[in-house]
């Protein structure tokens, strides 16, 4: 019974985070800071997915920018079209070629429902195809990491090179409204924060359920002894595929919300460097712990904004240094401090008892 209770304990943590984000933060933070926090929440969603794929599944996904971009560009196209109104054409396209018609693949994104569907369906389809090809061929370890990273590079290059259709390096921007809500209104921006924070809490609940489920056990088993899992009658490729797809969907949702919050989506938000930045927060926070990736991503996001404002250029070195220190001194990330502390306490107590009985 106690073990059963224990497995629900993390829900309390999720509830605490939900209260901090949904009640406390809006009450104490300025509009600007709240908007920044919303941005970190987007990165945190990507991080929860990475925690699942990498922390629990052992797949070092170095190209989550690909899925981040799928959601972000879907949302960006929709908001761009919404901003120019019925039948309108995005300004960057007109600047490029005043007579060009709207590219066919943009057209369906006029529909909000289609856009929301694509934010989920596109990463599922892309990650399934990619994952199937990768895992059935038994590509793993460093090869897997490099391959995913290469995909992020390729997609960023593709977007940069197709200015006519995607806005290229300048990206998509100049949005004025989000599903009918004007972005000028601070109240609406707070609404967007609330949606984002709620989605993040949702991602955490999904991760919590997956971790405690039999699938979670199987995923850890696959991470630790992939070939052995075959002898339980499972194809490990399928198990990894599920985790990879779920992680992709989380990254895509994070990317989608990033667009109304930041107001611009360009390749530099999803390229190789951005993809590594996603990983850094997860590694710092603790990749296998439920809360490690979220807290790590929020902290790194915060550090990025504040430190890079004060000492531009230094931040990346601070992050690099932190990364090295944590991976060497604390491989389980900052989240492992809690369990280490508990372990130390228990040891102290038992040695006390021994001393007392002696």
């Amino acid at each position, binding site marked *: 019974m106690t*073990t059963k209770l224990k*497995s629900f304990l993390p829900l309390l943590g999720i509830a605490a985070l939900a209260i901090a984000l949904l009640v406390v933060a809006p009450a104490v933070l300025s509009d600007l800071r709240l908007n920044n926090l919303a941005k970190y929440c987007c990165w945190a969603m990507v991080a929860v997915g990475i925690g699942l794929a990498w922390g629990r599944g052992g797949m070092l996904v170095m190209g989550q920018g690909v899925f981040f971009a799928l959601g972000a560009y879907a949302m960006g196209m929709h908001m761009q079209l919404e901003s120019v109104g019925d039948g309108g054409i995005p300004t960057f396209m007109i600047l490029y070629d005043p007579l060009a018609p709207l590219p066919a693949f943009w057209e369906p994104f006029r529909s909000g429902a289609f856009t929301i569907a694509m934010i989920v369906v596109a990463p599922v389809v892309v990650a399934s195809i990619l994952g199937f090809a990768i895992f059935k061929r038994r590509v793993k370890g460093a090869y897997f990491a490099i391959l995913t990273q290469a995909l992020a590079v390729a997609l960023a290059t593709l977007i940069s090179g197709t200015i006519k259709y995607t806005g290229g390096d300048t990206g998509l921007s100049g949005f004025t409204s989000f599903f009918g809500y004007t972005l000028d209104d601070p109240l609406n921006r707070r609404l967007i924060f609330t949606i984002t924070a709620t989605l993040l809490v949702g991602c955490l609940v999904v991760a919590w*359920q*997956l971790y*405690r*489920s*039999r*699938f979670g*056990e*199987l995923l*850890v*088993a696959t991470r*630790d*002894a992939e070939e*052995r899992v*075959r*002898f*339980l*009658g*499972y*194809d490990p490729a399928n198990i990894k595929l599920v985790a990879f797809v779920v992680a992709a969907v989380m990254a895509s949702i994070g990317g989608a919300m990033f667009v109304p919050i930041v107001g611009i989506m360009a390749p530099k938000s999803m390229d190789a460097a951005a993809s590594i930045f996603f990983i850094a927060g997860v590694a710092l926070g603790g990749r296998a712990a439920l809360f490690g990736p979220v807290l790590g991503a929020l902290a790194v996001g915060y550090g990025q904004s504040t430190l890079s404002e004060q000492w531009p250029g230094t931040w990346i070195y601070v992050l690099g240094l932190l990364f090295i220190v944590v991976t060497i001194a604390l491989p389980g990330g900052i989240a492992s401090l809690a369990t280490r502390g508990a372990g130390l306490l228990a040891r102290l107590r038992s040695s006390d008892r021994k001393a007392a009985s002696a």
Partner: protein
Amino acid sequence: MTERHLHPDALLVRDLSVSFDGFKAVSGVDVSFAPGELHFLIGPNGAGKTTLVDALTGLVKGTGSASYGGKELLGLRSHKIVRAGVGRTFQTATVFDQLTVLQNLDIAAGLHRPAWRLAFARHGVPAAVDEALEKIGLSDLRHKPAGVLAHGQKQWLEIGMLLVQDARVMFLDETVAGMSADERAETGELLRRIGRERTIVVIEHDMDFVRNHADVVTVMHAGKVLAEGSVAEIQANEAVQEVYLGRTAKGNVHA
């Protein structure tokens, strides 16, 4: 011999060969494994015992045929072979160290559950898991991570995993190697108990253990089957004596 070959639930291996870059680790092996007997596979180091089992469980490619329950096993992938009812353990115990004994058994039982149930947590202990815990004597250690188990206990856990998997054919690769005398005796008892309605094939070097528990012994040497029969028949076989006497100290087979 003939009636064993005709057993409807026997695993029939015909002309099985495995080569590694031209080196024939297993060549032209014919053997049948039938339910209800403890079948031992013995032979000197490098004889091809593990490779034979590897081929039958999809770990290495083999030529020839191996049919079980109307299915051809060669060419199937490992997880399909497991689902066909053929399971195995490994020479070095490979349990999932991070998971508890209970979790190890529970995920092994998973292949009989529909896939969607993976999305949910375990509630209580499934009956098959409880039964297996009892049989392998690890009930008291159910909440311990498998990584902390002693060598022998890990081997039992692996057998337990085959039990909940409900493997009808079990290949056990040097399960009792490194166990104490007591543990060996217990393992022997366990195998007898679970072997009544299953096909159990044990790879073993320890001749005392073989003598105490074998119903049928197949001797392999240099990739081929050298002899097959009861313990007495094997001990009387001159070819077998020659192979063993040529390699190891006198009396290993006799004693």
